[in-house]
């Protein structure tokens, strides 16, 4: 049996005295779209920093496709693609140049990085952007280029940290649709961190994170019940705060 794309167990982390993650466990299956829902400051970015090994987790375990991030970081990171909240591509380089660089970081030959990047861009509706400098692209186009860059090396897990930040509603909808399509076509497990409930489809698995704790884990439809996902999330986070007090 293939290992899940991402498996996190009992993850905890503190910055000094401040506790930011507490006993977080979650699984992202291969080829599935999982939304990590939480307000700003819920601990989503810290969770991503630990999964990408920007720094090591002090408690708990993280495995990407079965590879422990601490014991086998190279194997784990090689199967991981990340779309960061802030722009990670160089705005002064063309899209193609950025792809060559990103591909090189994963050991890809230049021709492969270029052709794969062009195919991914075309798949997202950007056929003629390869020789355009990143700074000349719109926010939505640049975001799609970031996603293409994250998928160049055919990762089995894609992490997206508030990838729609700063985009208008149409661009956001198009990006989310693209992500769902890629999940199905490429068989990539996606963990999509967001605080915007309108980016989540009813069938998506939702992990609600609040003040560093998982407060719900189910399909969006099941969490929403009779009402809306937004109301259900507010009720959950309110209940979590009341319990904490």
């Amino acid at each position, binding site marked *: 049996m293939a290992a899940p794309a991402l498996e996190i167990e009992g993850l905890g982390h503190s910055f000094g005295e401040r506790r930011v993650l507490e006993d977080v466990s979650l699984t992202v299956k291969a080829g599935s779209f999982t939304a990590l829902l939480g307000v700003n400051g819920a601990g989503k970015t810290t969770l991503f920093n630990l999964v990408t090994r*920007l*720094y090591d987790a002090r408690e708990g375990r993280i495995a990407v*496709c079965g590879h422990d991030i601490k014991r086998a970081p190279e194997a784990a990171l090689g199967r991981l693609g990340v779309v960061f909240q802030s722009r*990670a591509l160089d705005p002064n380089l063309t899209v193609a140049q950025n792809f060559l660089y990103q591909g090189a970081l994963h050991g890809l030959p230049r021709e492969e990085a270029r052709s794969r990047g062009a195919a991914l861009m075309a798949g997202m509706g950007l056929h003629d952007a390869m020789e355009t400098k990143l700074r000349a692209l719109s926010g939505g186009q640049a975001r799609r280029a970031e996603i293409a860059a994250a998928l160049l090396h*055919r990762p089995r897990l894609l992490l997206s940290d508030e990838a729609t930040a700063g985009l208008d509603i149409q661009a956001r909808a198009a990006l989310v649709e693209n992500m769902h399509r890629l999940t199905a076509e490429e068989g990539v497990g996606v963990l999509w961190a967001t605080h915007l409930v309108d980016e989540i489809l009813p069938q998506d698995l939702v992990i609600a994170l609040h003040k560093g704790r998982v407060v719900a884990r189910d399909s969006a439809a099941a969490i929403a019940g009779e009402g809306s996902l937004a109301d259900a999330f507010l009720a959950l986070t309110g209940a979590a705060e009341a319990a904490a007090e």
Partner: protein
Amino acid sequence: MTEPLEETQDTAAWEAEGWRGWARCAGGIIWREGLRFLQQKERFLSALVRPLVWLFIFAAGFRAVLGLSIIEPYETYVLYEVYVVPGLCAMIQLFQGMQSSLSMVYDRETGAMRSMLISPYPRWFLLFSKLLASTAVSTLQVYAFLAIAWAWGIEPPRLGFLAVLPALILSGMMLGAIGLFLSSTVRQLENFAGVMNFVIFPMFFASSALYPLWRIKEGSPLLYDIARTNPFTHAVELVRHALYLKHNPDALAVVILAGIAFFGAAVWAYDPARGVMARRRG
């Protein structure tokens, strides 16, 4: 948790590429640094203008004031312009090392550095590649400067241009490693001015770049001791001796050891488990 670790559906790209992948990764980092440098023409010009101002103006002015006796590696009395050229070569490398460090702080602030740090290749290898990239750029700058100095009449032995290459690589890597370590300790771009005041200027002025050590000793024994222990002094002397086809084993040893020490400190600082990255909020 899957235990023991199960094999995945396929092999990651970097695993399939083997040693070629490692070479491509290092090559990609060097290529990007070079591309960035070429795109910033003002950076290239300012990198050249700085030592040229020292050579054309400062050195011309001080020629009459600073007489030099015959010292290693020179075999005769030399003009001050001749003396100061190796120091200016090392100055180019010092500033390039800091420039590279500055760009790493900028990349860290904007998030661009993360794409490098999530590469599957070991972090020491990524930092070493970054060091190679910075050294390659500074070496090109030094050769451009030496060409202009040659046109100005400062003519070391022709073979010296070849002999100085290994010295430039070693000193460039040592100074780049200092920059790399500093980039891990500087929290914000705004704090980088402090690096200029507390690192670059003291390193440059308390060295043999502008005046020979025996001159410094005459003026201040304390400053002489500081200059003697300053790794930048040894970088200057390594370049000076190599340019004039002489060997300076002391300088070579200090440059190599200091380079290893600073690179080790940088690797430690960027280590996900132990260094400053682990203590800094993401």
